[in-house]
């Protein structure tokens, strides 16, 4: 069985890879491209630990075949900080202690950024519903929500 050749853009970098058709985008990100920030939690689209954006749209990378990435633009957690400068969401997660074990954090950050890119001033309720597909077993979510709302305020210049 021949592998498929896929040309894509990941975190602004033109990227090519070969993959078998049954592999998910998450499989390829982690095992072929060594972008291990996206985590494999449930592999069924329930936990959100593998969240990435594809052409700006938030998706679970475990629910997308890697071959579908052909010609698409993908952003992962690795593209969020600018060198050593953390994104405001990342800084606020640290300030508010919005993580403990950290397994859900990349997915939560990518999902939260997708929210703020669309809606710079979300309500707490909107934020909670937007992030309902990101499971966290440590924080109880309150600190996550506070960090996102605080980052949103900073990004609005408040």
């Amino acid at each position: 069985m021949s592998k498929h050749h896929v040309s894509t853009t990941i975190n602004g970098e033109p990227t090519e890879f070969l993959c078998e058709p049954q592999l998910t985008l998450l499989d390829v990100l982690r095992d072929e491209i060594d972008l291990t920030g996206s985590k494999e939690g449930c592999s069924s689209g329930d936990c959100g630990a593998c969240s990435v954006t594809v052409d700006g749209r938030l998706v679970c990378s475990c629910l997308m075949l890697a071959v579908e990435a052909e010609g698409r633009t993908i952003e992962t957690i690795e593209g969020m900080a600018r060198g050593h400068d953390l994104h405001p969401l990342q800084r606020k997660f640290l300030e508010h202690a919005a993580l403990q074990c950290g397994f859900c954090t990349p997915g939560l950050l990518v999902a939260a950024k997708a929210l703020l890119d669309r809606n710079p001033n979300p309500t707490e309720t909107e934020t909670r519903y937007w992030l309902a597909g990101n499971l966290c077993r440590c924080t109880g979510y309150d600190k996550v929500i506070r960090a996102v709302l605080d980052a949103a305020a900073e990004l609005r210049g408040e």
Partner: protein
Amino acid sequence: MLAYAAPSTVEEAVRILAGASGVAKILSGGTDLLVQLRSGRARPDLIVDTKKIPGISGIRQQDGAFVIGAATPGAVIGECEALRRAWPGVVEATNLIGSTQVQGRASLAGNLCNASPAADSVPALIAARATCVVAGANGRREIPVESIVTGPGRTSLGADELIIEFHLPRRPPRSADAYLRFIPRTEMDIAVVGAGVTVTLDAGGVCTDARVVLGAVAPTAVVVADAAAALIGRTLDSTALAGLDGAAQRACKPIDDKRGTIEYRTKVAGVMARRAATIAYQRAGER
């Protein structure tokens, strides 16, 4: 060994499906298919990805009617202001499917053809008298959405066929729809009962047309003609609501499972139908 094809026209997709030697699966958003690949429930020899077909994703308006591409993600449907105004029930039902991440990919064709009795968009689409255009080796046909699902996990589509788009009809004045589902939490769950209701009112608030469809209470979504009949010719008074509730309960043939007993699902179906009808009347009255 699994093969993957991404045809760039409907005709090419049909040719590939018709010529497939083993089991072929159609990939739209993949939010059900990839889970089934992982679990082993689906073991296709070929995956046909429809998303390179022009028009398979996107929404367009034609004289007040809407055409929704089969693979249009739920998030795109939710962002369409004109569609939300015309068919709020269809949009709210579609947006109940899964998380934000799932909405980024999940499609109407996938929700329909996965053929879960609890699919949220299906009762709303059937209530709306939505049709779908099916393409196959013998050409194209436009058929009602309710003729697709024949049982849990089963559809009436031939091996060479795929849905390419959905049509939602133009709305008369003072028409609106609503969809409600019951789940024991507020988000990220599967319907215990779903109810889609669409109504058209006259200037005096009397219902002139209605359609009531229940989900998750039978092997397929159920069109409850008696429930619609209880609404037509009346305002939404206590007689109409009681008639609707009773008819909805009588239409239920649910299963007992961990999410609800037969008795519970049956009772809740009446409640959801009443509440969805109340919302649909209120929306229609505001137009």
